[in-house]
């Protein structure tokens, strides 16, 4: 059984693998602990023991085993920390190459997308803004797509389940995250931070398509936009 | 029950009123500490708040500092007098401290009224002086910090007044010390607020 939804980003695999790694550590530790907890219930049941042994645990020799167990746990914690650090760095820092970029604004209650205009720059007057429920953000396949995440009214959280990326969008800040999609398709963008009554229906789509199709889409978008602007 | 109480001898022999007052002060300091930390963080992020801080009245602030320090001194004298069971002196010094608090509040209200007169209010979205809306948050902090402190001044005065009423009857003289501790805390907080709000410009 696959417990994760399909992964479509370059770094999503890292998070899934991290889960299994931690599961090995945590699972082992859990069952050992359970054994330590339950075994004496059988072994030291009052019907089998005449008198409990008087162990205060204050002596060094008595506490030694617990201390060793604490050290092992700390060690495995740090192993996890080192194992996950690369994934964390990859996701939270930006790659050198920026292929495409968008502004994504969370608002009550949909995501608004801004494409750079024909000049290829964001923040200029020819930017194309799409701000409607159920609208789609088109992204080319296998490219580093940068998302400048903002929020208009309250805190939202940009969550594309299939890429494993989640990032809060905070009013007054611009936070940039990136995704490199590895598979074509249409994926949900949901909001993972409660943002009011409409939180439950705050959903848009990311459409990942090949570069040709993407170029085609962008062209038609520009045409549409200039037609609207011309009127 | 009184005789039972006497059986449970306090192990540390610290009067429990004093201990409770220390904890109350610790709790209060955490509230002010959190608030001051927020203010300092914002202040570091927005250097332009200095333009707003210019409008605080350093002179009145300085006078108020002296007033509070003096009233702290008189409350120490009241405590000394209470230790010597000198009711008359306790009354005198405590009244002086309450008077100090009153004087502080008078100066504070003069300050507030001039500031509000200039349009610096608790929630002023726009300011005539610079048109800079960011700066308005300085006044929110200013009024919140000084207002909360002023509230503590009033509470401190009430506590001292209650201690005074008791002391005049010669009862519960330990309360003079507790009132003094609280008053010192009020003073201490002001010592932090004064440079942060009035001097740093």
């Amino acid at each position: 059984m696959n417990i994760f939804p399909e992964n479509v980003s370059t770094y999503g695999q890292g998070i899934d693998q991290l889960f299994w790694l931690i599961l090995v550590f945590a699972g082992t530790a859990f069952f050992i602990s359970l054994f330590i907890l339950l075994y004496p219930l059988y072994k030291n049941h009052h019907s089998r023991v005449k008198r409990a042994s008087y162990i205060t645990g204050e002596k060094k020799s008595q506490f030694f085993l617990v201390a060793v167990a604490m050290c092992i746990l700390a060690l495995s914690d740090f192993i996890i920390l080192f194992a996950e650090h690369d994934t964390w760095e990859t996701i939270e820092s930006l790659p050198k190459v920026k292929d495409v970029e968008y502004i994504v604004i969370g608002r009550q209650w949909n995501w608004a997308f801004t494409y750079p205009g024909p000049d290829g720059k964001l923040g200029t007057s020819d930017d194309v803004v799409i701000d409607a429920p159920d609208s789609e953000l088109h992204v080319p396949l296998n490219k580093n797509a940068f998302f400048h995440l903002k929020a208009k009214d309250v805190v939202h959280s940009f969550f594309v389940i299939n890429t494993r990326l989640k990032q809060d969008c905070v009013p007054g800040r611009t936070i940039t995250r990136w995704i490199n999609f590895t598979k074509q398709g249409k994926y949900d963008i949901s909001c993972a931070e409660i943002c009011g009554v409409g939180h439950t229906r705050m959903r848009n789509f990311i459409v990942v398509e090949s570069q040709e199709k993407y170029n085609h889409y962008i062209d038609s978008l520009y045409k549409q936009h200039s037609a609207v602007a011309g009127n | 029950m009184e005789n039972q109480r006497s059986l449970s001898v306090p192990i540390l022999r610290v009067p429990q009123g004093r201990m409770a007052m220390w904890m109350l002060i610790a709790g209060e300091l955490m509230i002010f500490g959190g608030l001051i930390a927020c203010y300092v963080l914002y202040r570091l992020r927005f250097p332009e708040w200095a333009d707003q801080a210019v409008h605080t009245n350093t002179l009145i602030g300085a006078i108020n500092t002296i007033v509070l320090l003096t009233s702290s001194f008189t409350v120490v004298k009241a405590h000394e007098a209470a230790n010597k069971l000198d009711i008359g002196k306790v009354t005198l010094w405590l009244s002086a401290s309450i008077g100090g608090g009153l004087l502080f509040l008078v100066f504070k209200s003069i300050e507030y009224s001039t500031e509000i007169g200039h349009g610096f209010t608790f929630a002023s979205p726009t300011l005539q002086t610079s048109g800079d809306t960011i700066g308005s948050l300085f006044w929110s902090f200013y009024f919140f910090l000084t207002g909360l402190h002023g509230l503590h001044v009033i509470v401190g005065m009430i506590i001292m007044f209650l201690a005074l009423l008791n002391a005049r009857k010669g009862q519960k003289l330990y309360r003079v010390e507790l009132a003094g501790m609280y008053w010192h805390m009020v003073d201490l907080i002001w010592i932090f607020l004064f440079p942060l709000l009035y001097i740093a410009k």
Partner: protein
Amino acid sequence: MSNTVHSQSFLRKYIFSTDHKTIGAQYTITGLVMAALGGFLAYVFRYNLAFPGDAIPLFGELTASQYNTFITCHGMIMVFWVGMPILVAGLGNFLIPIMIGTDDMAFPKLNMMSYWIFLFSAIVLVISFFVPGGAFGGGWTLYPPLSANGYLNPNPSFFKALFYGNSLMIISVALEFTSLLMGGINFIVTTINRRAPGMTPWRIPLAVWMINIATVIFMFSVGPLIAGAFMLLFDIVLGSGFFDPSRGGDPILFQHLFWFFGHPEVYVLLLPALGVLGEIFPVFARKPLFAYKIIVYLTIVAAILSVVVWAHHQFIAGIDPRMATFFSVATILISIPFSGIFLAFMATLWGGKIRIELPMIWALGFIGLFLVGGFTGLFLGSNAFDIYAHDTYFIVAHFHYTLFPSIFFGFFAAFYYWFPKFTGKELNKTLGYIHFWGTFIFFNFVFFPLFFNGLGGQHRRIFNYGMFDSINIEPYITFEKIATISAICLISIQIVFIFNFIMSWMSGKKAARNPWQANTLEWLAGSPPPHGNFDNIPTVYRGPYEYSAPETDADYLPQNVQP
């Protein structure tokens, strides 16, 4: 006051009482009533999640805004009006004076006042359900701007804004903090100052240690949030902009203030429950508590660390990645003392002579469940995995696996252990076991499936997954149904507890003074202990955990027995 306490009127004895046991009972019963309310809210929104759109039995149609309100208030109520009164205030009041061998709290009247302020805060919260717009529905974390001006009308008048659901919630929380601060001062002063002769620090039972450490953490961490709560309230009612980015404020600041308190709060709820374990394990293993002093030291270390881990709740809130690494390391560091504490509890069982009785089985259940919660914490403490798991059902399941055992298993362990003492009656064992197994099994069926829903990507606080085709699929739909049906069973099984509670109290068998053969001082007092607890204040000669000590043939040696 005099020794003739029996002549007190009903009102003085049960309502405006200054007796620590009565006040403890008042806190506990208020907490249980609030738990019933919180449980009912949980039932309503869980039912909606499993059967979206259906009319809910005993409630009717649920709207999205009501759903938001209910999940918010469920969280608020369960943490602040159930966990805090039952575990900290309730247990603290019941146990501290009697376990350290004194007649009452240091400040009985202050104690009574803190309860009444607490009750008032609960009433304010309940009233907030009935104001226009309903109670606040933006998550119990109260994140602005949603909790401030993003919530309703942006420019309300002062009085109108004061009676909004969010204002009332902030006010009620502030009142509750005031009450608990007063109670906390009382606890600490009592413990430091009013111990019986011979009750040196290392002879204080672990429960008292733990409640006091929890109180210190609470008092240390709550101050900034009180300041933050007022800033938020001013944003709502006076229109200031402390957390409004368009006016120079920063919403993230509130998150820091909230979690600076919010994370230690988890330990405030956990520690008293651990204290209860520390009492129960030695008694039922007939063996000294393993490494009693070291447990206390580890707890103090954990308490200090608890105030520097808060930002692990904000890994994806846009904080600096380097800061996130620091908090990740701190989070790992804090798991080390706690692992030591739990291992020491388990080590207590090794080499003991174990009797399985009701309190013991609740304590064991607590540890078993908490292990799940603790080890799933490893996933979330690792900040990379947290990017995915944050704000999904994984986190919901995780913290229910930590908080439910602490609050309810901790409470029930304490309840079944001390009930004979404080009421003088024995509980019905069969009903007790039904209650335990019902709670234990159904709890797992509620929350274990939710781990998978979370890993599958279901995010929290969604009224209806109908719009999300990729996560509104099998097996998650079935898991939601399992969780809901089990939740209904989990709530229903508590009727057994209430029935047992009332029936045993009214007509239970008379309990012995020391039914579990325990060492601590409360078992010396009568059952139930009279006002003033002891006939004579006892003198303490030894630590609380001298079980199966070599100097006696009996397997226990009460603290007050002269050597």
